């Protein structure tokens, strides 16, 4: 490689998460060698225990911020990264662990742990963007590995990501699926959910549960009325929005209103 320009340095970091998004990257088996040729993979604990210090050209960040230590560490990551890309629902919206944001965390600690005083945790689980500047977000639980690859490929060319922001319905229709809301009355979240999964659940006859988070400009109120018309209770509708991406503003605002928390 002598004489060539050094490869951009890639790092992958993890906060409160299940590692599933990092696994999506590792699952890109046919692309991993090419990826390792184009990037110097400097820090990726899920793949190798050998790590190198920063700075990094691109940092992929998985997971949400749930402890005082996380708050410090994400700042260090930010300082070392030229481009910081958050990957997955935890990093982009706080993840399913955001449910604690509505609860008494001290009470939960006492119920779950025999020595709750050893648990150092924040009262909230929040997305990375609430703590440091984020350059790009890749939504999904887990992310679509191909989308991560597209973002990295474009980063090599100095181009911004071009991920879709429209609804899952767009992908669903392009695949020729019959709409499960209209034909079967299922409470599908597709109309407010961001495309990117390939309409995975509706293609298999299951209603979307919004694991890719809100689309670019959703109308949750209109969908909530639609779900009520399909027979869901107000509480069930709130729960549909309170899922993995429930901390994301348009979903949270709707669920708060339905549960009377917006006062």
């Amino acid at each position, binding site marked *: 490689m002598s004489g060539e320009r050094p490869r951009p340095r890639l790092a992958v970091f993890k906060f409160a998460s299940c590692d599933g998004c990092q696994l999506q990257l590792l699952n890109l088996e046919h*692309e991993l060698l*090419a*990826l390792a*040729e*184009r990037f110097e993979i400097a820090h990726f604990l899920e793949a190798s225990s050998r790590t190198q210090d920063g700075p990094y050209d691109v940092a992929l960040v998985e997971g949400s911020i749930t402890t005082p230590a996380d708050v410090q560490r994400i700042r260090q990551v930010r300082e070392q990264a030229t481009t910081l890309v958050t990957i997955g629902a935890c990093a982009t919206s706080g993840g399913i662990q955001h449910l604690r944001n509505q609860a008494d965390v001290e009470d939960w600690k006492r119920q779950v742990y025999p020595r709750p005083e050893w648990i150092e945790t924040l009262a909230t689980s929040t997305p990375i963007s609430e703590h440091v500047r984020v350059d790009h977000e890749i939504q999904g639980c887990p992310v679509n590995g191909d989308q991560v*690859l*597209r973002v*990295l*490929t*474009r980063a*090599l*060319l100095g181009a911004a990501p*071009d991920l*879709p*922001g*429209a*609804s899952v*319905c*767009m992908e669903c*229709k*392009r*695949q*020729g*699926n*019959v*709409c*499960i*809301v*209209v*034909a*079967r*009355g299922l409470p*599908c979240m*597709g*109309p*407010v959910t961001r495309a990117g999964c390939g309409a995975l659940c509706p293609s298999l*006859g299951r209603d979307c549960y919004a694991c890719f988070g809100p*689309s*670019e*400009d*959703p*109308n949750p*109120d*209109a*969908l909530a*009325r*639609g779900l009520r018309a399909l027979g869901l209770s107000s509480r069930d509708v709130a729960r549909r929005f309170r899922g993995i991406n429930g901390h994301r503003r348009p979903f949270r605002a709707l669920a708060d209103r339905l549960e009377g928390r917006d006062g």
Partner: protein
Amino acid sequence: MPEPTQRLWLERSRLQQLLDSLGERGFEVHGPVVRDGALVLAPVRAVEELAVGWRESQAPGRYRIEQSGSERVFDVVNGPGSLKPFVFAAREPLIRVEMDGPGGGFRAHATLPEERAVAVVGVRACDLAALAVQDRVFLHDRYPDPYYAARRRGLFLVAVSCTRSASTCFCTSLDTGPEATTGFDVALSELEGGFVARAGSPAGEDLLAELALPEAPAETCVAERRALDACAEAMPRKLDPSDLPELLYDNLDHPRWDDVAERCLSCGNCTQVCPTCFCHDERDEPSLDSGHSLRVREWDSCFSLEHSYLHGMQVRSRIRDRYRQWLMHKLATWIDQFGSSGCVGCGRCISWCPVGIDLTQEVAALRERSA
């Protein structure tokens, strides 16, 4: 050789022969089948695979299909799919760019689709009208679209005139149906025991000649006329086009746009099922090793924010703006642009809107309060 307008009689038991003849002529035959709770156009070989004895009910935001016990083959008016994907692919590569190595140039070549002979059986008059609209957009302009043209050339259309309408249909308002009058190779009307068949092209004449069908008796032709007229008269939904496009041009700030924006999901379903909506996105998909790149075209929608992003700004940032853009284009600016309405009255945008927004009602509301 029968005259093009001659009406022939095809007994229901001989419909299989028509499918077989198409197959023998090298066509991949597609027809209306029931799948996942709706009518879809899918490859078929046998009449039994078609939606025989099924009937659907449609309403804004609702579609249900059930068996009626009838022997009729084409009682289901339509499903979400039209002819659109047969000619304008939902996603297709346009060009592939190959790099000649470091420091070298690049070569680009078109990735035209392989030409295939495809016969679609059961095409409705509204969808023929929609195809004519798409032909106008993609073919009859200064820059014909070779991808569309390649698919269009291979298409053989067996139309079925409607003797039954869905509650969401309003083709009579736009004069596109229920009878197939032009743009087909063969047209059928389903009656008791069989079909009145007529050719609409030399290829259609040739096919019907091979089947050596008898002439349709005069009383059968009368029954056909009566069935088609009855369908037209029974059509419950109306879209009054008499004051279009001015009605829309005169009401750009009508409060109804805010009203519909509260209900609209901006999900894009209406545009995806619309048989004339042609908006698309083109994006480059470079390979990780920078050795090649693919330019891909896929269906987009005026309801997506990206679609109205122009040199650094969002020109239609609110749902209100996007819904208005869609309706305005479909019913008003389309007329200025292409000389015809962009709406053919198939009603798909009404049935397949997850929250049941009905454009005929929206237009009526604009008219009501603007008077």
